[in-house]
């Protein structure tokens, strides 16, 4: 089996794994369909924006939860945005944690919010690693074509 075939198989297997484990859902496939000759790096570009935005949002949430008087509406607004972006790229596990987080915001439970944020950060970092690995495989595939 040549290098290219091997890499492509690894890519397929990794994508299947991410779907099976629930890291990604159907929406990610929608994103892949939007990638073509005119926008060959679309998925990587959008995911890059997602990484930047997510990190900002997570930090904003942390900051809001550290205030002497916590503004839960503010925290909720960040969660809202995070749920929107994660749902849009198909990041299912992250999205589901946002749903949980929102409930804690509505209940105005600081302890639960803090706990949930920790879980969210963790889940997000797992997803980031997985996607970075996927994109690395893609880069190798592209390099193998040359």
């Amino acid at each position: 089996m040549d290098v290219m075939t091997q890499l492509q198989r690894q890519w397929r297997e990794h994508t299947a794994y991410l779907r099976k484990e629930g890291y990604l859902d159907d929406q990610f496939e929608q994103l892949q369909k939007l990638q073509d000759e005119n926008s060959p790096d679309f998925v990587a570009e959008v995911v890059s924006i997602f990484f930047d935005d997510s990190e900002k949002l997570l930090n904003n949430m942390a900051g809001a939860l550290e205030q002497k008087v916590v503004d839960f509406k503010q925290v909720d607004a960040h969660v809202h945005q995070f749920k929107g972006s994660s749902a849009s790229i198909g990041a299912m596990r992250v999205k589901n944690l946002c749903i949980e987080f929102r409930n804690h915001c509505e209940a105005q439970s600081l302890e639960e919010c803090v706990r949930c944020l920790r879980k969210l950060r963790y889940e997000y970092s797992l997803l980031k690693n997985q996607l970075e690995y996927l994109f690395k495989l893609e880069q190798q595939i592209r390099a193998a074509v040359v």
Partner: protein
Amino acid sequence: MGAAVDHVTPMGMSGGSAEGNDKSEGQRFSCKSKLTALVVDNGGVCRAIQTALLRSYGVETEAVETGEAAVELIASGATFSLIIIEMLLSFMNGPETAKQIRAMGAQSKILGITAFFDERDQQEFLAAGADNFIEKPLSPEIVIPIINELDN
């Protein structure tokens, strides 16, 4: 020998070895008339994805970050077939934005969109002049019927 090119593999390999390349999936639906759209969302990810989805159907699409920017654009004379507005924007919210856009006489189809569907938000958006209200993500199932409607 040829590598089995899975249709799910990205890389735009459709130009190369076409073994197993399912092009029927790639037969993209496209709008018939000249349609334009405006995406109003404070999140970069959603702006990028919604814009790309609409453009993939041939809809000329722009995106702005705030309700204020959307209002300014329309006040300056820009018209759009479709305007997609996020509920929770950074300053003026979605419904208020829709209200101001309608007040200017815009006949655009307005689609309210949100991360968390909520009936009160739906009522507020519809009362403000939106035609519809959905939860993200924006999908082909939502967009294609809208485009068909606008085309006719």
